[in-house]
């Protein structure tokens, strides 16, 4: 039996660290009369912690050190593209010309920012093949909702009111059905065939004049490029429907394949995945939407545009325009502008060749991991993968070991676990996406850990069942956390009645 070191001490809460009378800042006596708060607004049951600045700084620094992030270690969370976010993105986003402007300033005074938005739209159009892009949506699922609302608006604008069905393959992202349901559409799941592609027979059965569209994730959540994609799009189009593309997996395709060329009519980009902007911890994300020409009038606005062409020495004048049949605003002001600055920086730093190389290495890294793990883990849809792949975290001869146990054990090696139990069409799924930013040494260390875990599963499964052992906390009781959800470490007396 392997020996493990004792867990490290756990950081106390700010309430535990509180000491009466301690204070972080002292205000000077005001030179105007003091007014007391009204009696009825004063609360006696609000135990605010009392700490000095150094206590607060050390507390939160120590807490941050308990986190795992892409800056501290490998983070192969499938479908999330946890690539390294270059620090120059942060430098550029902090330039005063970007950081200290206001969205209501006259456009003549923010030409750099508007030019950056315009150029970002142009780059996204070039990468995807679309005719128009809106940078408004706040993140991926928001982009999906926007795209589905555009599809709905398109049908309604044509007086085509029958179209209420949205088809969603079972290999799509889990947010797709939610986005369609939010838009008032009826959701129909389409199964995958034995090679992990959309089952064409099942698709044909639903292609009629009530079809609003189909939402496809390509590469799909198995990490596979759908070999039927062109035909899938044709079938939907022949029935009068539109195809939505979930662009979360675009990291496999940059500079290699353009979604618009396959017949996908509208797609969102995840700037926080493909284009290296902050992701975990709330991002915020950014989910621009690209569309073909016939859907361009419905995009949410405002969109950055050249409102006066360049003339001689004079640069162009950038402004904001609203598409004529726009579904309206989906976000305050211009989307998550600071995130867009980071994504544009990334595109410029890599350039066209660099973006293509990023996708090629993302695919190469995933295939390298898949090839090295194939003998120890079962890969149910086993063919050349794109930027990620899905293997089973189970063995028939040790039925008590589950994907969750493998993930927990990986934490002992300093790796973030892969995505667990998704997609649902693979038993005990472990979805692994290394991204292009990891070295062969990191990939090899990850493989060695997984090979050791596969051996432990057969020789000393209790090591997996009780993992993790080297983290500040051991195995958490997820069932109790879900059934007995308490987010406050104290409750005001008024709430306990």
């Amino acid at each position: 039996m392997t020996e493990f070191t004792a867990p490290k001490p756990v950081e106390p809460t700010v309430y535990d660290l509180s000491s009466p009378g301690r204070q972080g800042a002292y205000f000077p006596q005001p030179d105007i009369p003091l007014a007391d708060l009204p009696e009825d607004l004063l609360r006696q049951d609000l135990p605010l912690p009392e700490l000095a600045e150094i206590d607060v700084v050390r507390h939160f620094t120590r807490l941050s050190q308990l986190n795992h992030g892409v800056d501290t270690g490998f983070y192969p969370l499938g479908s999330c593209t946890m690539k390294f976010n270059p620090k120059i993105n942060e430098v550029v986003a902090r330039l005063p010309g970007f950081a200290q402007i206001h969205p209501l300033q006259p456009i003549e005074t923010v030409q750099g920012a508007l030019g950056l938005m315009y150029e970002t739209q142009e780059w996204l159009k070039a990468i995807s093949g679309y005719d128009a892009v809106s940078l408004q949506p706040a993140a991926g699922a928001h982009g999906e909702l926007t795209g589905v609302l555009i599809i709905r608006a398109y049908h309604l604008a044509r007086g085509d009111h029958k179209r209420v069905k949205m088809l969603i393959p079972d290999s799509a992202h889990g947010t797709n059905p939610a986005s369609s349901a939010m838009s008032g559409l009826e959701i129909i799941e389409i199964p995958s065939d034995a090679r992990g592609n959309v089952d064409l027979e099942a698709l044909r059965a639903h292609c009629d004049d009530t079809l609003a569209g189909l939402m496809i994730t390509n590469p799909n959540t198995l990490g596979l490029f759908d070999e039927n994609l062109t035909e899938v799009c044709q079938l939907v189009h022949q029935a009068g429907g539109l195809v939505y593309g979930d662009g979360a997996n675009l990291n496999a395709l940059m500079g290699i394949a353009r979604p618009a060329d396959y017949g996908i009519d509208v797609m969102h980009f995840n700037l926080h995945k493909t284009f290296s902007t902050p992701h975990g911890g709330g991002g915020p994300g950014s989910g621009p939407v690209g569309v073909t020409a016939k859907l361009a009038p419905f995009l949410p606005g405002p969109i950055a545009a050249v409102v006066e062409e360049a003339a001689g020495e004079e640069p162009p004048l950038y402004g904001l325009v609203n598409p004529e049949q726009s579904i309206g605003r989906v976000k305050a002001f211009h989307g998550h502008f600071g995130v867009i600055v980071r994504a544009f920086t990334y595109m410029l730093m890599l350039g066209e060749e660099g973006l293509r190389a990023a996708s090629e290495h993302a695919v190469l890294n995933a295939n390298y991991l898949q090839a090295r793990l194939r003998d120890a883990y079962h890969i149910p849809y086993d063919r050349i993968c794109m930027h990620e792949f899905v293997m089973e975290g189970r063995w028939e001869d040790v039925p008590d070991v589950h994907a969750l146990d493998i993930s927990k054990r990986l934490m002992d090696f300093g790796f973030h676990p892969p995505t667990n139990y998704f997609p649902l069409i693979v038993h005990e799924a472990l979805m692994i996406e290394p991204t292009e930013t990891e070295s062969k040494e990191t990939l090899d260390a990850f493989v060695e850990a997984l090979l050791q875990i596969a051996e432990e599963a057969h020789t000393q499964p209790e090591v997996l069942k009780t993992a993790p052992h080297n983290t500040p906390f051991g195995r958490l009781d997820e069932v109790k956390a879900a059934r007995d959800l308490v987010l406050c470490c104290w409750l005001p007396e008024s709430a306990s009645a």
Partner: protein
Amino acid sequence: MNFPKDLKYTNNDEWVRVEGDTAVIGITDYAQDQLSDVVFVEYIVAEGDSAARGDVCATVESVKAAADVYLPVSGEVIAVNEALIDAPETVNSDPYGEAWMIKVKLSDPSELDELLDAAAYEALDRDH
């Protein structure tokens, strides 16, 4: 894994026990095992509703996933098992007994003929 011979089954892992003109409905031992620890049971239909075969009647959520429960037969809902809302773990411990979910007064008993018997259910291909 346990699949009682006196029950009927669906491809979607629901079971049906016929009691006179009433169908008692729950999810199978296989379903609860796949879901792992169930943490929420929510009903989409209520007592008195008329519901059709294939309608979503409940949602079962575990630490791994959320799954819809589809009505295997049409009819009027005459009871829902409210006890599962407070004790969802019963779905794991007693899927065919205490964890029945919904009782339906059959409007078309011939629908029962289209359900699977225990042997056919157990023989379903689970890989695709």
